[in-house]
């Protein structure tokens, strides 16, 4: 059985708070923040059911949500592992060895860019410049920037996430509690 798509009370309260930040009748503006919250709450990706649910909250057509979700790179339209490992692949990071890093991770996790490990723990995704070029090469996992990376450091970081075994998302759950 699929579980029901519904925000927790805490998250829903935050959703309504965010919708009030925009003028009367312009609450569609809240769509991007709400999609981030949806990824946080519903396994790190946006299923059609999740997007329909977001449309119903915003009182807009589902197509308006699909349109937005498919435009922005942070929204995953397919399931992802518990840890989305986002390695920067743009010029400045590349000049300082981002490519070696990607190859190292591919080998270590036995997956290619865009794939998920068999145990569902990691998905590797290469992304564009994250405004951290002075500490290149770097990667992002959840909200955390891991900078000045070497292959050894990557191993260490990935092991830590594996040990914790928890799902991490860009909008980290800890901030929901903090905001109440």
């Amino acid at each position, binding site marked *: 059985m699929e579980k029901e798509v519904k925000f927790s009370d805490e998250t829903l309260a935050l959703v309504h708070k965010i919708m009030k930040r925009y003028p009367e009748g312009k609450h569609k503006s*809240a769509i991007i923040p709400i999609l981030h919250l949806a990824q946080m709450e519903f396994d790190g990706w946006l299923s059609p059911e999740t997007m329909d649910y977001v449309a119903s909250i915003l009182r807009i057509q589902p197509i308006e949500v699909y349109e937005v979700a498919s*435009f922005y790179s*942070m929204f995953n339209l397919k399931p992802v592992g518990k840890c989305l490992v986002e390695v920067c692949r743009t010029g*400045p990071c590349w*000049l300082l060895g981002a490519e070696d890093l990607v190859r190292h991770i591919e080998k270590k996790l036995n997956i290619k860019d865009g794939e998920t490990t068999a145990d569902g723990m990691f998905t590797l995704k290469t992304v564009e410049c994250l405004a951290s*070029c002075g500490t290149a090469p770097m990667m992002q996992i959840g*909200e955390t920037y891991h900078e000045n990376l070497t292959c050894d450091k990557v191993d260490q970081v990935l092991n830590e996430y594996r040990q914790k075994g928890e799902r991490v998302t860009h909008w980290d759950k800890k901030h929901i509690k903090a*905001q109440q």
Partner: protein
Amino acid sequence: MGKQLLLDNIHAPGIATLGVYREFGGYKALEKALKMKPEELVDEVKKSGLRGRGGAGFPTGMKWGFLAKPEGVPRHLVCNADESEPGTFKDRYLMERKPHLLIEGMIIGSFALGARTSYIYIRGEMMYVYHILEQAIQDAYDAGLLGENIMGSGYSLDLHVHPGGGAYICGEETALIESLEGKRGNPRIKPPFPAVSGVWNRPTVVNNVETIAAVVPIVNMGGEEYAKIGVGKSTGTKLISACGHINKPGVYEIDLGLPVEEFLYSDNYCGGIRNGNKLKAVVAGGSSVPILPAELFLKTAKGEPRLMSYESLADGGFATGTMLGSGGFIVMDDTASVVKNLWNFTRFYHHESCGQCSPCREGTGWMEKVLYRILDGHGKKEDVDLLWDIQSKIDGKTICPLGDAAAWPVASAIRHFRSEFEEYIKNPGSIKDVKHYYRLHNEKEPAY
């Protein structure tokens, strides 16, 4: 070292908190500003000579002066914190460490423009900074610096932070506005300009993080004093984010007009090229600006030492000059391949094109493929001219400047490093260390 108007006390413990920020004189400028008339504030900014720090360098006071003020229509100040131009990481640094500097600037700017609700649009990837700003805004509300009747002045303002979803194009101001309205980030055709019809068709000013932060020292010291820093029409200080093959990458605040040689080699700044290597090329203002070879970077074509200023970096036009841009300073030593780096940037622009205009949507893809073909050892003699032709058909022929931003790196690389392309084509064996990264995405079919 130059004056530290933005980065002063950046390493003071707790400077991210309201209390410590105020101990170091924070919100003094706001107190002063709220006693002035909005027009006087706009005048101070005009006098300061401040130019937009987001990349285009448009005079901020003039932009504020253009804002339409129709009766009964709310207007908005929107801060562009999308910072996605490769090589640029100054705004993130500033917001993470001194969030209240941006908030203070936002309140002053909003007051000057008569905005009652303002937004900070921050790229979604910087979610941890989003939360830092949320906290700082909450603290400012609690201290009576936001909300109703700020500091007893009668002026009220709501300030919100809004995360993006991951799209370089949303740094372009009309795409940012579309995104803030909850849509795809497709740039709008101008006119109308945001100053007349911006977010929700209301008059809107969009300014970069650093631009808004600079308003704080301008109010503190007065526009005239600020204008004394710098050289000519490049007034004040500028944050430069330096990266690539240098000894000391990081964010530096310089007085505009600092000689580039000093910036590059002094231990106060970049500290020279790593491993004692030789300088090959510099992309001085974010990935979009023309690349310059070492000689033309250090000295203009006329043989004058180049300065870190809008005018000096642009000296010689695109034939022999470049742009200050966003301040994303990318250095390449003699181990770097200009063609490989260009391929990566072109791949980036192709990936980030919103797809509305065919020259940009198709042209960026074609350039990426031709460059890949060259790097894959299958370059054709006519490929360099082909690349030139494609870029010239993008430049100036699109809705937004992303098209130009994709064309300029290609044009400048060919202009200054044509022989490197030709060598790769004539002698594929000279392409060292090719790893075919792109292949990972296109394992079965070649990319061209």
